[in-house]
């Protein structure tokens, strides 16, 4: 890394249902062992007292794992896995802010688990691709069947990936960036 310049950070969000392979996906391409950051759930009131301290008051925290990939001397990519449960959607607003977009991972055995993520990205206007994680290299459903089953609009790419393999993960990210470029070009 050039000693005099700070690289530009960019970010991609990896979303999907519980145990679909988000952390595996991030770990497959990250330069560093994935790290975990925790955030405290801030209530509407934002009262400091509600945020938890040593007196035994409980505050809800949410853990997010993330990885880092140097794309060049000037560019570093952060990949953030979303916390699974719905009650942590407050954190998603923060995660998608300024992001290139999102990869929504789908396990064909539990298709419906990705609905909340797809809903969220659609409503938030976040560029996203749907990536079917071929667990054990076995693809139980054709991507177009997945599209139909999930009622995904034609402009959203439905890709096949393998969260355990770096090349497959990279290709999925390429697919997302291309899609984000298409969207950026159409709104420019």
């Amino acid at each position: 890394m050039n000693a005099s310049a700070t690289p530009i950070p960019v970010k991609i969000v990896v979303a999907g249902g519980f145990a679909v392979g988000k952390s595996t996906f991030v770990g497959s391409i990250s330069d560093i062992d994935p790290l975990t950051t925790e955030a405290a759930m801030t209530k509407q009131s934002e009262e400091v007292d509600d945020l938890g301290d040593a007196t035994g008051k409980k505050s809800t925290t949410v853990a997010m794992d993330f990885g880092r990939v140097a794309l060049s001397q000037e560019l570093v990519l952060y990949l953030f896995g979303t916390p699974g449960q719905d009650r942590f959607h407050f954190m998603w607003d923060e995660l998608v802010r300024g992001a290139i977009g999102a990869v929504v991972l789908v396990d064909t055995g539990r298709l419906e688990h990705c609905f909340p993520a797809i809903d969220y990205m659609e409503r938030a206007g976040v560029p996203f691709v749907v990536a079917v994680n071929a667990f054990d290299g076995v693809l139980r459903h054709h991507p177009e069947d997945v599209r139909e089953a999930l009622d995904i609009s034609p402009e959203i790419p439905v890709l096949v990936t393998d969260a355990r393999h770096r090349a497959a993960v990279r290709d999925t990210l390429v697919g997302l960036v291309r899609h984000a470029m298409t969207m950026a070009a159409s709104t420019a």
Partner: protein
Amino acid sequence: MTESNDENFRSFRVRPYLLTGGRTRSAVDLPLEALVRTTESGHAALGTQSRERHQIISLCASPQSVAEISAHLKIHLQVARVLVGDLVQEGHVATHVAKHETASARPDLRLLEQVLDGLHSL
């Protein structure tokens, strides 16, 4: 209450906002991925800092995101933000936020091209 300095007692859940004097808001707007880098002034001031500030200044000799600072110091994201915000205002660290972030927008085509090139080179 006593402040334990034993690393073994460190956890994310220990009185998160004690380190910030109860403040939960950073003076500086810092996205998760904002890169933080130690300045000359920061290096010079290293000897006189509290532990967490010292750790941030040391860690960011090579640029680290706010998320990484939170993870490495095992402090909540919001706490990391407040501490980094203070250090930014004092000139001990500098942050680099991509232009699109300040506009709360998405990366533009030019930046996306660079990302694509970067991914292809992996």
